């Protein structure tokens, strides 16, 4: 049974390359060379144009401007900043402001979003309807419009600073924001901070001990109550032992503004409220679908075993719901962080706003924009790296 093969006898061994377009390996290489070539060409075209244009217009390049004095003021800052500081520090202030509004926004949005998401599943018809109305309204209106609304609301509905509302002693609310009493310097505050740190460590140790004891004897230690007691009680104890100082740094209207205390600016309020409200509607959906995704059978099985509702939630439902919730939740966190760049429109000094001012004053637009993008990319990448790690860790084992 001699076979006649249509390929040449002694054809190259499978896997070898035959330099013809019908060889997939060869073809893939050709395609890739073409695509990469095209991209490199376009990139080279853009970069060379840019360099050419920069040179032609004798625009300065490089990051040395970061060392120069910024000489513009910034409305609010976590670290000390004055116009005498450098552009680099100003940019850092912007980054910190972005992080501040993002972190607080994320915390609040998570809390509110979770509440609303749970409320949507409530057996109380009224609450479920109200929650879903909230979600449907908020989700479908552009966040920028909401920001403008909140900002206008503060400056229009609140009284001028001279007639500030004074709902509690030392608390003032006006167009200029919210002032609350700050803590005046006293060693007791440090003691309380230390006490709190001790309580955190103590709670941690206690929970390990409780776990161990339960494993040994089966007795269940009321960990939640004990932990809360420690976390609140120890600082309180420190406060009482420290002689219960009542001296507060009260805000006082001196000259044009309140002086002293802690302040919350309307810009911060608007951006924080806007981001929190907008994102919470999305988080509500994420939470709701996460909870719904856990099969009702799981609850029934836990109940049938006699587990009370607390442990059912903690040991059975939450660990499963979190797997569904966490990935979309992180992308909501990422969205919130990116949306904080809208602060530009209402005057909160976030990183985009400060970088824009910097690039405007120094004329170094390319550097400014790369710094903005670089910062956001760093944040995004760190979050996705964390996500991948988390997903791997919690992946359900299947056959």
């Amino acid at each position: 049974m001699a076979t006649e093969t249509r390929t040449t006898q002694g054809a190259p061994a499978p896997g070898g390359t035959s330099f013809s377009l019908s060889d997939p390996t060869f073809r893939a290489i050709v395609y890739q060379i073409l695509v990469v070539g095209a991209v490199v060409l376009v990139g080279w075209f853009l970069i060379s144009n840019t360099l050419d244009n920069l040179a032609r217009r004798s625009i300065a390049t490089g990051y040395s401007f970061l060392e120069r004095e910024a000489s513009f003021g910034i409305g609010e800052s976590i670290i000390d900043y004055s116009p005498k500081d450098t552009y680099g520090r100003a940019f850092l202030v912007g980054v910190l402001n972005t992080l501040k509004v993002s972190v607080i926004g994320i915390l609040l949005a998570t809390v509110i979003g979770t509440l609303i998401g749970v409320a949507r599943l409530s057996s109380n018809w009224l609450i479920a309807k109200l929650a879903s109305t909230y979600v449907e309204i908020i989700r479908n209106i552009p966040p920028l419009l909401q920001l403008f609304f909140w900002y206008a609301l503060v400056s229009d509905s609140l009284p001028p600073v001279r007639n500030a509302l004074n709902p509690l002693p030392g608390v003032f609310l006006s167009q200029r924001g919210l002032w609350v009493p700050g803590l005046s310097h006293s060693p007791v505050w440090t003691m309380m901070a230390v006490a709190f740190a001790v309580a955190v460590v103590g709670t941690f140790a206690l929970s390990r001990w409780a776990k161990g004891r339960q494993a040994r004897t089966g007795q269940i230690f009321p960990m939640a109550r004990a932990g809360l007691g420690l976390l609140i009680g120890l600082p309180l104890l420190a406060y009482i032992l420290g002689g219960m100082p009542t001296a507060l740094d009260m805000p006082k209207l001196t000259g044009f503004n309140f002086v002293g205390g802690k302040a919350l600016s309307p810009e911060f309020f608007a951006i924080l409220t806007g981001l929190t409200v907008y994102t919470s509607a999305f988080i509500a959906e994420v939470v709701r679908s996460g909870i719904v995704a856990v099969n009702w059978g799981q609850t029934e099985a836990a109940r049938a075993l006699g587990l009370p509702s607390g442990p059912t939630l903690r040991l059975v439902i939450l660990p499963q719901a979190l797997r569904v919730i966490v990935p979309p939740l992180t992308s909501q966190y990422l969205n919130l962080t990116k949306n904080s760049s809208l602060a530009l429109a209402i005057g909160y000094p976030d990183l985009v706003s400060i970088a824009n001012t910097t690039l405007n004053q120094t004329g170094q637009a390319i550097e400014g924009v790369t710094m903005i993008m670089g910062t956001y990319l760093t944040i995004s990448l760190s979050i996705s790296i964390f996500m991948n790690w988390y997903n791997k860790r919690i992946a359900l084992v299947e056959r």
Partner: protein
Amino acid sequence: ATLDTVKQRGFVQCGVNAGLPGFGNPDSAGNWTGLDVDFCRAVAVAVFNDPNKIKFTPLSAQQRFPAIQSGEVDLLSRNTTVTLTRDTSVGLNFAPVTYYDGQGFMVNKKLGVKSAKELNGATVCVQSGTTTELNLADYFRANNMSYNPVVIESNDEVNAAYFAGRCDVLTTDVSGLAGTRAGVAPVPDDHVILPEVISKEPLAPAVRHGDDQWFDIVKWTVNVTIQAEEFGINSKNVDEFVNSKNPDIQRFLGTSPGMGKALGLDEKYAYNVIKKAGNYGEIFDRNVGPGTPLKLERGLNALWTKGGLQYSAPFR
């Protein structure tokens, strides 16, 4: 070269303020008006002999330099202060100053403030990305005072924040303050502009580095308007001067050739500019002068012959 690009394109692309009455502002029909805008038109006339061969790009303070650097606009006429950094590292060339200004403060009368020196601790509304922002910082630093800046990108928002009561003080160029008080304030008389002028703000149109011919065109278009006023030539009477025997005026209006050609423009470009855009005084009066809501006096912007600073280099 920019001139060729512009001619080929058929219009001048001009960057202007998005909403500063008297300087750059679209009226309700969408037509751009203002002093800065008129100088853009003058350049369009110089190039095309047509004040409408122009497109305006409204720019925020933060956007203006990237826009001119990148070539997004051919000409930046957006109440921009001439400074050394802008001339050098930002890479701009400034035409003659079209408006001499200085930074001032506006406050609500109810505060009873009489002088800028009393502003310690005040909240100040200021637009971001401006010399104003820098002067403000310097001024308070120099006088050992502190302030709370509320820095917003768009002019509109800054004004809105001030009038809503978010700030005690609004700071920008005095002309801008006047414009704002006249055009934006709900009740103009509630607000006063404080006497201190804390900086020199020579405002001038700018082009980017690297194209001397285009720079010359803009420079000598601005000069035309100033020189015309000095000669007493305006859009109404320019035709009478065409036959003037004065050799200066003949050269100026292009009756005797040479000047326009040197710039690469029509010989009669100056005539056209005066005829279709007017002289400096006309432009001033039309947009910001006493007859307008802004009610600004000529002051520093009077001709040098009348004790002001407006002075054109000679056309020869």
